[in-house]
């Protein structure tokens, strides 16, 4: 069972990293998105600090959504998805592997580059640590919820709108609490525990629920 997890994870990473330059492409993509904001919104020290929490989460959402489109659709259109469904292993495990790959390629780079956000936005060191932590907990949730949406829109036509609209709002709490935690860290004497507890709870819920839901959605779209 674990075999097939590694197999898929390795393949998805291999596909993405076929060219080493692709890692850099993702990192520079974040840099571009992050440096857009000061140019548009203003470069005053106070403004920069205020928008920083929102900016990193928007960058995360954007990267996550941009890559979601491809999460299953290329496997679907070239027939690999059929073969996955027919493999003598549980589809949920494979789906989980694909989610992990998606996170490693869109979430993790952001976590790693986020100190640069601190630099560009003149954040205090403490906030930088908090930012990395919430991104570390929160971005996997984006990948997992997103996967459900991607699987549902794969086959469903017309009806897909409704379902994806149902899925997308689940992003919101993650982003609200995620950016809330960073913003609070810049104020004195606020406890961050509630934020982390909530995000942790979301993450647990997503891990239990989403591979199963995604696998079910995939089977429906294959029919």
């Amino acid at each position: 069972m674990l075999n097939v997890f590694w197999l898929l994870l390795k393949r998805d990473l291999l596909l993405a990293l076929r060219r080493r330059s692709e890692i850099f492409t993702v990192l520079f993509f974040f840099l571009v998105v992050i440096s857009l904001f000061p140019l548009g919104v203003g470069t005053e020290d106070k403004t920069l600090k205020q928008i920083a929490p929102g900016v990193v989460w928007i960058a995360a959402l954007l990267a996550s959504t941009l890559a979601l489109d491809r999460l299953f659709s290329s496997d679907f259109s070239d027939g690999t998805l059929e073969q996955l469904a027919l493999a003598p292993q549980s589809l949920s495990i494979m789906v989980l592997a694909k989610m992990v790959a998606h996170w490693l390629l869109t979430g993790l780079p952001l976590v790693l580059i986020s100190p640069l956000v601190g630099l560009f936005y003149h954040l205090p060191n403490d906030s930088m640590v908090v930012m990395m932590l919430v991104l570390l907990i929160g971005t996997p949730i984006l990948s997992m919820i997103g996967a459900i949406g991607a699987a549902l829109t794969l086959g469903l036509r017309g009806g897909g709108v409704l379902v994806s609209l149902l899925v997308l709002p689940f992003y919101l709490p993650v982003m609200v609490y995620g950016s809330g935690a960073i913003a609070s860290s810049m104020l004195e004497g606020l406890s961050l525990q509630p934020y982390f507890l909530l995000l942790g709870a979301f993450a647990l819920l997503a891990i239990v629920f989403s591979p199963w839901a995604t696998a079910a959605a995939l089977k429906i779209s294959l029919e």
Partner: protein
Amino acid sequence: MTLEVKNLQCIRGDRELFTDLSFQLEAKQLLMLEGKNGSGKTTLLRALCGLYEPDVGEILWHGKSIKKQDELYRRELFYLGHLNAIKPDLTVFENLRFNTQLAGGLETDDALMQALDAIGLFAFEDFPASQLSQGQKRRVALARLLLTKATLWVLDEPFVALDAAAVVLLQSIIADHVDKGGMVILTTHQEVSLIKGEVKRLSLTALTENRESLNA
């Protein structure tokens, strides 16, 4: 070892593709599924694999419904549809390795290379699949046939895009499998001749036409 289909009915949209379809397949038998375009061959094959749920009827493997054996059945099944399941960004070799490992195969790299050579892709092993011609892509997909340990092969138009030499090769691979006690179900619009083994034929058009003439 039997595959048994009982009273199968598939409806797509408003159209009844087939009703009351029953047949049985034993070891050393090959089933040629015939029928016009749109008569439901692909649908039937997908139903046999469990990818499509028939509206009525049962599919039994070793006397037990395939829905209830799930992974056990899938371990003995090899399906190749219209799509090749080839990733353009991986090399030919990587594609074959992934696909065999996914199906649970534990072949060595040497065995994989030999399979590729045998199917006529010698010297193409390290090509990205995106740079292959149509027929070469199909060959990569078919190379898995040389490695799989599955008993039941379900092949949807396997001869498409292949040149004459490859068609002959594939025929011998199929004949070999049937010979060794395997089962094959395939659809094709070209004639295929086997030397040994029993060839059964099932024509879906006939079924539909019977029904149409009955209705008329």
